[in-house]
């Protein structure tokens, strides 16, 4: 790997430039030497120091070469002088770049980090200014090719005619991965065939490739920060270039803008869809004969027909597969939103790739059968993805294999995985295509051998209400037709159960189904206990989609909007405007009920890219929640400003997490006041209630003082349990001590309800509130507002309606004096 030397008048400038460049390069990136300033303060350049730096850089580069970036005047002269002073053999391996220092250094460092040679790095450095030039619309000398030279393939000369060109930057986190690449391909395809578009990666010097070739575009290895040279020729050249520029401005549609959390405009709540085959049972349990995913046989023994026959066969199969993908895409869009649909659109773009199809055609004309030709060509493309240095792009090989299999099924006439029969599907991993396309009327549940509960396919299935048991391992290695029963709630799997077990399972399923049906039917009715007590059941929300789901399931508002979860995928802090859009949408979903929005709750186990928290030995007792903003409240102020703006039109509460002291409360209220002034108000809007999370025992003990003057408090039972019991919730070794039903926790909850000042609403939003068996106990302790997982809302409402406040209070009185959590569970079972 080549080394770099920065020669500058100022040592501080050189070091800062090196630090900036080092951010762009991997840890084992190129050696960056500095020869700058006469000493720390005195500006100037010193040829002797430069000569020494060149020597060190040359040693580190092991003969690969040294590129020197210089600033002004004497930096150039001193460098030239240094070159005369050093061993001419070493000097022969040194190049001095005329590039602007910062831009050139960054470009060259990135290139060097990829292992590019000296000439390429020098070229990259020279082009360091290109991105800025193009961004500012400073038209370069028209005589200069847009992205000429370099190590790119020399196909430029093959194409006579007028090529217009633009340069665009790749700004998306994962570079030009499959979906952004697919959008680029579709944009280019829209102007085809009259207009041709080609793309090259200016930064790495790869390409050009045909913009219609997704695999070609993806193999440009365009990562974040790279510059693409896009050229077009034909009647719509200018138009398509403009469209591509617009596309690039949104990180090729990948920019996490306000569109993303709001993408699912149709509020897909597939778990309650009335369309046949869409909604799963929602019972989190299923029983039925094992259905196995049929594997595709090897096409090795396929005999080839004539070239024409084989080509026709392939064309037909590809057309079939494209049809199927289009249907899947439409289905995904209807039930799950645009984000999921794009997975299938990207697959379709891969399938239309002229390069891939051309390769298959060549193989067929060489005498191969269509199936074999297809298999080989797909493997080659997948292999090319796997060879890419970027882990994210490597995984795209799966997409290629997925479309490969889809076409192969048609070619070999093997049934679609989606039409499998009736029963419990057993798969290694549940891929998203299968998860969206499963007929819920036939497949009652899914058991996966591998993979956790958070896989993409599993989440889709869950959203549809399909029962899924994950990670069953070898126990799920069963013959097709074997009876399988599982209960995901209890994590229980029965293979070929005895008749009495079958009976018990059937009864349990019937019970759950009846309860769910009743609960769903009544879920929009308010909860009034048999003896007339009113309880509010709200939903915990982590996205606009879950807000709509919760509202659809009868939640009367949200008692907890986890803003850190809403923006968990974001790498940059959302702007005030973006937050306003998202919070408004969530509030709108629950209108006319109020929603309670918690400010960024970071730290502990909840990382957010845009709010860095220093690593701590004991993060749960460290800088968490509101503590994270004491030093720099700017992001909190932005959020509070957004809430003040939303609260002008909608009913909101703001909730401050991890409050411990009176000072925390005062500080938080002062920030809210500050945010209100930002939007031109003298005080926070009346519609904006103010509250704190009660999750630290210290707050529970001093509640009367701390909650004075607040509108709402919300008991975070998860953290309250772990802080009360001194046992971390995620640590399996202390699971026995961290049970939220421990009588000590229950006593604290009762204490909180008793001590809350008059007029302050007491809500509970932890996991306890999502357990239908526990809801009554909480109400008995004095909680009048529960905020639960959306899917649990109907059942909780039904249970509370069926009970009496008196009975719940009796239950609570017994529970707080019970021996331990296990004894509390026995009590719950008795009352159920």
């Amino acid at each position, binding site marked *: 790997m080549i080394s770099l030397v920065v020669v500058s*008048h100022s040592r501080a400038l050189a070091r800062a430039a090196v630090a900036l460049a080092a951010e762009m390069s991997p840890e084992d990136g190129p050696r960056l030497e500095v020869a700058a*300033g*006469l000493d720390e303060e*005195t*500006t*100037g*350049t*010193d*040829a*002797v*120091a430069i000569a020494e730096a060149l020597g060190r850089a040359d040693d580190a580069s092991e003969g690969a070469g040294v590129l020197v970036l210089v600033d*002004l*005047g*004497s930096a150039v*002269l*001193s460098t*030239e*002088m240094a070159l005369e002073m050093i061993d001419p053999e070493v000097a022969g391996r040194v190049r001095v770049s005329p590039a602007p220092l910062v831009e050139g250094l960054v470009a060259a460092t990135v290139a060097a980090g990829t292992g590019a040679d000296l000439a390429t790095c020098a070229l990259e450095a020279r082009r360091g200014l290109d991105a800025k030039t193009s961004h500012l619309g400073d038209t370069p000398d028209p005589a200069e090719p847009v992205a000429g030279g370099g190590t790119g393939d020399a196909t430029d000369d093959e194409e006579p005619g007028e090529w217009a060109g633009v340069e665009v930057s790749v700004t998306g986190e994962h570079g030009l991965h499959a979906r952004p690449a697919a959008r680029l391909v579709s944009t280019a395809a829209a102007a085809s065939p009259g207009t041709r578009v080609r793309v090259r990666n200016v930064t790495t010097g790869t390409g050009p490739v045909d913009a219609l070739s997704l695999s070609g575009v993806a193999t440009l290895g365009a990562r974040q920060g790279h510059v693409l040279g896009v050229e077009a020729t034909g009647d719509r050249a200018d138009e398509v270039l403009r469209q591509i520029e617009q596309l690039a401005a949104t990180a090729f549609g990948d920019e996490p803008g306000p569109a993303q959390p709001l993408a699912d405009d149709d509020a897909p709540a597939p778990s309650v869809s009335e369309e046949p085959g869409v909604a799963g049972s929602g019972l989190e349990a299923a029983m039925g004969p094992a259905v196995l995913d049929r594997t595709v046989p090897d096409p090795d023994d396929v005999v080839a027909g004539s070239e024409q026959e084989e080509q026709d066969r392939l064309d037909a199969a590809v057309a079939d597969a494209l049809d199927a993908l289009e249907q899947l895409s439409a289905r995904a869009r209807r039930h799950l939103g645009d984000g999921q649909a794009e997975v299938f659109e990207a697959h379709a773009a891969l399938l239309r790739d002229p390069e891939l199809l051309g390769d298959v055609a060549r193989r067929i004309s060489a005498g191969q059968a269509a199936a074999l030709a297809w298999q080989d060509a797909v493997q080659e493309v997948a292999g090319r993805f796997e060879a890419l240095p970027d882990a994210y792009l490597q995984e795209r090989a799966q997409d290629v294999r997925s479309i490969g299999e889809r076409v192969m099924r048609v070619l070999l006439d093997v049934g679609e995985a989606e039409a499998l029969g009736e029963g419990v599907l057993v798969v290694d991993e549940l891929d998203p295509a299968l998860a969206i396309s499963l007929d819920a009327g036939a497949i009652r549940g899914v058991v996966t051998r591998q993979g956790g509960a958070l896989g993409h396919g599993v989440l889709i299935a869950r959203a549809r209400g399909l029962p899924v048991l994950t990670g069953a391992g070898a126990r799920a290695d069963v013959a097709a037709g074997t009876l399988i029963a599982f209960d995901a709630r209890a994590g229980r799997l029965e293979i070929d159960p005895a008749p009495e077990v079958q009976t018990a399972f059937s009864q349990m399923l019937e019970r759950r189904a009846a309860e769910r049906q009743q609960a769903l039917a009544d879920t929009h009715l308010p909860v009034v206990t048999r003896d007339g007590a009113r309880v509010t059941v709200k939903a915990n929300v982590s996205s606009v989609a879950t807000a709509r789901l919760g509202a659809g399931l009868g939640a009367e508002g949200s008692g907890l909007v986890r803003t850190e979860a809403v923006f968990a995928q974001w790498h940059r802090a959302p702007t005030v405007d973006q937050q306003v859009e998202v919070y408004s949408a969530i509030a709108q979903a629950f209108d006319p009920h109020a929603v309670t929005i918690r400010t960024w709750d970071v730290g502990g186990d909840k990382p957010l890219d845009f709010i860095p928290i220093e690593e701590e030995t004991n993060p749960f007792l460290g800088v968490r929640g509101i503590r994270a903003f004491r030093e720099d409240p700017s992001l909190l102020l932005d959020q509070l400003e957004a809430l003040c703006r939303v609260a002008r039109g909608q009913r909101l509460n703001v909730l401050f997490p991890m409050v411990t002291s009176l000072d925390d409360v005062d500080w938080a209220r002062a920030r809210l006041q500050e945010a209100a002034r930002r939007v031109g108000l003298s005080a926070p809007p009346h519609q904006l209630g103010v509250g704190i999370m009660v999750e630290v025992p210290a707050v529970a003990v001093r509640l009367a003082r701390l909650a004075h003057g607040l509108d709402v408090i919300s008991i975070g039972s998860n953290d309250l349990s772990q802080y009360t019991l001194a046992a971390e919730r995620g640590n399996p070794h202390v699971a026995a001590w961290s049970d939220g039903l421990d009588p000590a926790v229950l006593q604290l909850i009762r204490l909180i309800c008793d001590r809350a000042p008059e007029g302050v609403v007491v809500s509970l939003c932890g996991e306890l509130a999502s357990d239908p068996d526990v809801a009554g106990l909480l109400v008995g302790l004095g909680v009048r507002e529960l905020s639960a997982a959306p899917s649990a809302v109907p059942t909780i409402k039904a249970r509370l309606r069926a009970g009496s406040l008196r009975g719940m209070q009796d239950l609570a009185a017994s529970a707080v004096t019970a021996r331990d959590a296990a004894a509390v569970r026995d009590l719950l079972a008795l009352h159920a």
Partner: protein
Amino acid sequence: MADLTAFQSWIAACSESITAHADDLTELDRAIGDADHGSNMRRGMTACAALAEQEDFSSIDAYLKKVGMTLVSTVGGASGPLYGTFFLRLAGPLAASEDVGAREFGQALRAGVEGIVARGKAEAGDKTMYDAFSPALDAFESTAGSGSELAEALRAAADAAAQGRDATEPMVARKGRASYLGERSAGHQDPGATSATLLIEAAAKTLS
């Protein structure tokens, strides 16, 4: 004829003169550059003047090379490599000399001035130190060529340098920081040509 002691006197005189004019040089540089020429040159020449006391030199060329390297490492601005090159190249033709006459110094001066041209890629009229060095070299060579002694040739060179220096005032800078000013650099005497003249004037006073 000039021996090692004479050359050391020259450098000491350069240091004195530069120090005395440091503020003027900086003022000139303030008008068209970054206002550091005086302090840069003072720092460099002071370090050079101290060399004679710090070290025993075996020859004139070894001494001048050390002066060159010292300037390279201590001046900081563009004059560092330029004057550094001048003294390093100056040393070359004097390698075998213990006592330098007009002919040898002429060769050395030519090498030194060519070094400045090679380093700075300046041409006459670019408003640089070359606009003082170039007429100085011409004057030295023509005077020495007609049989004059070193001292006389150096006096002619110093006069020519001063004229060349004065002639930089209306010029538009095309090199260095001053070139960023373009037309606005006209009307100011070039600081590099000024310091170059001081150096040659010091030589005229010390080398004979």
